[in-house]
């Protein structure tokens, strides 16, 4: 592992979950076509992925807030991320790779995976040895 990669991983761990939260709206989610399928490591440093952090490692809150502000203007776009159709605040984002947080969440699943300033700690379901191969839950014994 070279120094550049180590620096990259460190940076990802520190920026994870710090993408500003867009203000929720009430239109359907629309999946964006990938804008840049050749995302580089450098580009990834400009954004955040919820699944790119150390398992079970808590990520500190950035302290930012969007209670009354336009908080969605300085976010990075993710390949496969979703946004509200026609939402101007989502149109100036820059792209990242598959698995990114949802920029303009509307659906329940989108809200759960929205881009946010809130800290998080991923639980690795690989610790659940009884999960079925497809990730499903077996019946109780």
């Amino acid at each position: 592992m070279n120094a550049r990669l180590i620096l990259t991983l460190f940076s990802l761990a520190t920026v994870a979950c710090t993408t500003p939260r867009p203000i929720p709206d009430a239109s359907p989610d629309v999946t964006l076509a990938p804008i840049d399928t050749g995302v580089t490591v450098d580009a990834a440093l400009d954004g955040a992925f919820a699944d790119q952090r150390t398992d079970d490692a808590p990520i500190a809150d950035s302290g930012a807030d969007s209670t009354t502000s336009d908080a969605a203007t300085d976010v990075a776009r993710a390949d496969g991320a979703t946004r509200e159709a026609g939402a101007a605040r989502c149109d100036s984002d820059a792209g990242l790779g598959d698995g990114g947080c949802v920029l303009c969440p509307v659906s329940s699943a989108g809200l759960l995976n929205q881009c946010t300033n809130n800290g998080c700690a991923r639980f690795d379901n690989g610790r659940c040895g009884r999960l079925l191969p497809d990730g499903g839950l077996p019946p109780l014994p």
Partner: protein
Amino acid sequence: MSILVKLVVPLVLAAVAAPSVAGAQTVECESLPGRVYGLGGSAQRPFIARVASLLAASTPPMTVIHQAPGACNGINALINNTRMSGTASYWLADGTERQCTLPVTGQAVDFANMGNTAPNCPGVASLPPTIGDFGTSVTSWNVIVPLASSQQSISAEALYFVYGWGAQSQVAPWIDESALIRRDANSAAALFISLATGLPVDRQRGIDARTNGNTVTLVAGATNVNAAIGYVSGEVADANRARVRTLAYQHFGQRCGYWPDSSATALDKRGVRDGNYWLWSVNHYYARIDAAGVIENPRARAFIGYLTGTTPAPAPLDVLRAEITTGNIPRCAMNVWRDGDLGALYSLQPDEPCGCFFEFTATGRAPDSCVSCAGGARCPDAAPVCRRGFCEVL
């Protein structure tokens, strides 16, 4: 269910749930002024205690007399006309909790309280038209561990295995069933863990703690700190942050686990308010209503009216502040909402947003984006309404 069981079960559960109030003198409940009798869950006990003490200080005073044998015991008693008996808690104006003795013939229940809707309770197929359901603030449901636990988060899948498979779950370190603290099927906390994971509530393994408070006691006192785990309401978890710690929760399909707050130590409830945190519900109060939907009992009508905001609360009760300072979230501070127990999330623009006031009251500091208008300052166009000292959106 036989009449004997209906009468005795709540009494036994109430006896188990009744807190020990050292040095307190027990009085007859009927001797207290402005009595209103409530029965239900222990999840909202800190809030009920706060409101009760403020109402005891009002003029004329109202005395809230409450038993907390479990969420569904309250609504079942209300529906079946089961009377409260034994002893119950009430609160003095200074916040002191005391016990009083209920009439030997029992006492009718004026209101029931719980965190879930009635149809999710055992024995309640649907809410009868004679019972009104009044939603108030929001509470989270928190998975808790001892302060010294090495764990930071848990997923829905892991919770299913831990509580459904017990020692055979293979989800270390939660594989000691004597350290798995659970509740029974009448508990709102247990119902929400089961609703979230798909685990039948009557199949949960572990030790039944009987109340939210006792869950904290058992988890905090566990000898194997890494194996211990339990679940309680957010306000009970918040009231016991010196004893237990809340895990981040990662729901099915979620890419990361989130806390009810923006971090493990914050008090802002951003995880719930923004929709990152799945485990939350509306606090429900129930009472008998007439054909017009009006609560029949005048004191229950006043009490629930204070909580829902339909009746002005008497000084010194400030319901919004009481909700916030006990770890609950008023609807006006929510950015998302849901219908029913753990229903799908959707965006919410409250009628009169109070996010800035909420964060200021909950954390002691308003976010930088909030503008104070306490001194009569003009609010900006983006948040033009001065509400409770802060410029908020319309």
